[in-house]
């Protein structure tokens, strides 16, 4: 009777499908993440003709004073930036979370602004602000903005949002009861600050410090634009690879860049674990009490910082409209006629849009499906753990290093992927790999919040998991999926470090075109292109927020009670 018919074995079992999908995911991740890194490593141990030379390249590196000085320059700049950013970000985040100053939302938005711009935009602004013809040149007292001062200044702004976000999250986790107890005991505010507030965020601060340090040491755009004769690791890698086609030495620099990033990654993982313990103990959210003096001071401080951040963005935008800095300040759109300065005209911008669109579409699809397979299927644990490990790997790999890995991987003599070189496809794949981890974490977090028994219920109802994935998991996770898509889109628009080695004649991206225009002295058109990128990125984010607020709330009635 029907009972037997319903129990017949389907042609393909779900388990088989799931296992095959996880295996496919692992193969994809190995191809787009692990193998390029392996290529980088092996390249650093080879000579120009591909023979194994052990650590000879490293010996050459450390025997070349100019290269070693770049290493120390990088470390110095990264350290200096970290020491400046963390306290500033702490104070700013403190104002956002622990005060009653007005317009907190606006200040949060301003703090995030640098995320929407390529890092070198800030550097371009600095040239207009503090360059030899800069409007505020006097503030430097004769020092040159070209070099460490400019790099550190621009990096501080560039890293600021990352540090603020991390530290603000730490501050929000505070247990309000601790403060009530302290108050009940009559503790002085300064003592409360040093005994409760600071210890509470120390993990977040350490985490922020490592993130900032890694960002700075691997950033390429800022030192390229404003570094002058001051060489750092990232520009050195570019010079070795692009300028001198010295791939082996480029690989060595790439590996050296990998060291602090990997170190930061593991320290951060350890800290995250401890932070969890802190979290579980929390009970009552902290509610700041009115304190006019404190609020006024914090408002003043935040306003100054906010002004700097807006100026760093606004100066370049304004300059992009100025006819001939500094001798003719009349406004013009001439610098947006990119055909005058750039062989592709507007094409790099359109290519960037296409690239970012593809990254957002395919990347989000891959990341979410991958996270689903890792998180929700019954595939044997070792396979899923391996996939998860591969997904977390890009976090520890700076974009520049990944880009180098791709160059070596694709251009290796035996590589079957040589035809990919210079295509939009390789830019898309590389960018997906570069930003994989954050998307993976977002997706995994969202999936963990979904009832773990949905798949069991579906199985009991003889509904295959892919149907439930389509009908339930994806619709429920739509906000997270959009988050990932926008994150990928914005980062794909602004990224430079990875793709600068991979673009081809017909796939030049806007960010690379900015570098090239700046190299040939066309600073205003470079600023103009950067402006286009910033406005597009902010536009995408705004659209996302608006969609989320208006359309989504209507589509997702089921979220409301």
């Amino acid at each position, binding site marked *: 009777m029907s009972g037997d018919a319903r129990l017949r074995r389907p042609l393909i079992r779900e388990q088989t499908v799931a296992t095959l999908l996880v295996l496919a995911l692992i193969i994809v991740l190995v191809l787009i993440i692990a193998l390029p890194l392996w290529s980088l490593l092996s390249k650093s141990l080879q000579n120009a003709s591909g023979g194994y030379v052990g650590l000879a390249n490293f010996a050459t590196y450390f025997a070349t004073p100019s290269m070693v000085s*770049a290493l120390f320059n990088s470390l110095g700049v990264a350290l200096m930036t970290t020491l400046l950013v963390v306290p500033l970000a702490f104070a700013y985040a403190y104002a956002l979370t622990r005060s009653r100053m007005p317009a907190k939302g606006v200040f949060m938005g301003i703090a995030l602004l640098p995320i929407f711009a390529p890092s070198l935009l800030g550097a371009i602004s600095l040239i207009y602000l503090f360059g*030899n013809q800069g409007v505020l040149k006097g503030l430097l007292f004769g020092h040159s903005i070209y070099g460490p001062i400019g790099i550190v200044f621009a990096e501080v702004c560039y890293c600021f949002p990352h540090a603020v976000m991390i530290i603000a999250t730490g501050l929000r986790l505070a247990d309000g009861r601790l403060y009530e107890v302290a108050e009940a005991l009559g503790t002085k505010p300064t003592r409360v600050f040093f005994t409760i507030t600071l210890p509470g965020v120390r993990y977040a601060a350490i985490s922020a410090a490592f993130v900032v340090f890694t960002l700075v040491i691997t950033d390429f755009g800022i030192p390229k634009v404003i570094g002058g004769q001051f060489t750092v690791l990232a520009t050195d890698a570019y010079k070795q690879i692009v*300028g001198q086609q010295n791939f082996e030495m480029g690989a060595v620099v790439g590996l050296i860049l990998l060291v602090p990033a990997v170190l930061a990654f593991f320290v951060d993982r350890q800290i995250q674990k401890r932070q969890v313990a802190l979290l579980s103990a929390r009970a009552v959210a902290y509610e700041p009490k009115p304190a006019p003096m404190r609020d006024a001071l914090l408002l003043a401080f935040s306003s100054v910082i906010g002004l700097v951040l807006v100026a760093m963005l606004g100066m370049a935008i304004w300059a992009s409209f100025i006819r001939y800095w500094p001798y*003719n300040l009349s406004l013009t759109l001439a610098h947006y006629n990119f055909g005058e300065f750039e062989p592709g005209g507007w094409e790099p911008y359109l290519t960037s849009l296409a690239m970012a*669109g593809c990254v957002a579409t395919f990347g989000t699809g891959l990341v979410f499906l991958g996270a689903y397979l890792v998180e929700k299927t019954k595939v044997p644990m070792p396979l899923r753990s391996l996939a998860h490990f591969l997904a977390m790997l890009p976090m520890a790999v700076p974009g520049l290093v990944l880009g180098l890995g791709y160059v070596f991987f694709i251009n290796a003599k035996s590589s079957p992927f040589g*035809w990919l070189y210079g295509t939009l496809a390789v830019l*898309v794949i590389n960018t997906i790999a570069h930003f994989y981890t954050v998307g993976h974490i977002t997706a995994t977090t969202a999936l963990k919040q979904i009832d773990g028994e949905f798949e069991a219920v579906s199985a009991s109802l003889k509904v295959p998991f892919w149907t439930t994935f389509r009908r339930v998991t994806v619709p429920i996770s739509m906000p997270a999926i959009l988050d990932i898509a926008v994150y990928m889109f914005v980062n794909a628009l602004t990224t430079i470090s990875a793709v600068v080695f991979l673009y081809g004649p017909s796939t030049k991206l806007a960010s690379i075109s900015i570098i*090239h225009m700046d190299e040939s*002295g066309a600073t205003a058109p470079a600023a103009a292109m950067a402006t286009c990128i910033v406005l597009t990125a902010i536009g995408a984010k705004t659209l996302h927020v608006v969609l989320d607020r208006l359309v989504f709330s209507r589509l997702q009635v089921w979220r409301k009670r």
Partner: protein
Amino acid sequence: MKSKFLVGVGLCLAALIASAPIASAQTRTKVTAYTALENDQLQPFKAAIEAGVPDVEIVWVRDSTGVITARFLAEKDNPRADLVIGLVATSLLLFEKQNLLDEYKPKDSDKLRPGFRDTAGPYTWTGMDAILAVVCFNTVEAKKDSAAAPVSWEDLTKPAFKGKIVMPHPASSGTGYLQVAAWLQIMGEEKGWAFMDKLHENIAVYTHSGSAPCVQAAKGERMVGIGFDMRGAKEKTNGAPIDLIVPKEGVGWDLEATAVVKGSKNLEAARKVAEWSATKAANDLYGKYSAIVAHPDVKSAPPNYPADAEAKLVKNDFAWMANDRERILKEWVKRYEGKAAPK
């Protein structure tokens, strides 16, 4: 919602496929040209070439001379370029020596000035025009510092110019290398390096490209730029307060030239472009962007171009410039790179 998603995926796939080199359903042959021409030249050049050679589509790969040269050499086992257009003869001689260029002589090449075509060994390259280094001197900034305009290279080593001079990095910029080579040729190696040691004290930064110095001087970001001649003239025409100075000892120069790449997969099309490059029509185009052009009948007088430039060209030994390039650059890097950044 779902259909929109599918449309998005479709568009992306289309974009990916369109960008793949194999899938381009063009009837015209795509010819990849490596070039160090100025960015603003590329669109007019592409248009002119495609008008002159109708079944060809030019795809530019543009970078500074040093970058293009290094890239070309790195790819010698598997060349990606079909053509080289607008790269200095020094680099092309280097390629010729390594047997990387196609032996091909355009019909019209005999009509060009003798110095502007390949004369030694197999014929591989055809000259287009000459590029020069000049001194761009910002008069507004000079007035602020009451600095006198330099008339000789030696003048640039005066303390008044400390930290005020920019010049291109010779490893990346063709303009940079041709001027370094010129100093070594007119002063002799020993004195040349000694001069550069002193000049280094006054250099603010060595730029990546040859056009950046005059642009920076034009904007007053620096007082003096040693850079690409035509860029300087153009900036002055655009209203920049600069004078273009040709120092009395003479200025360095090089030829920009065209060559077909040996092993090109589009050899026929590439040769057609090379054929065109030697024509009068092509030289007329060069004349719009250059003061000294290969074709003797093309007279070019760009606005604001220093009249005495051609007369002050140093005597160039191209073979030496090509053969000793690596040695000179190595010495230069050893002396001036990675030291504490001058102010």
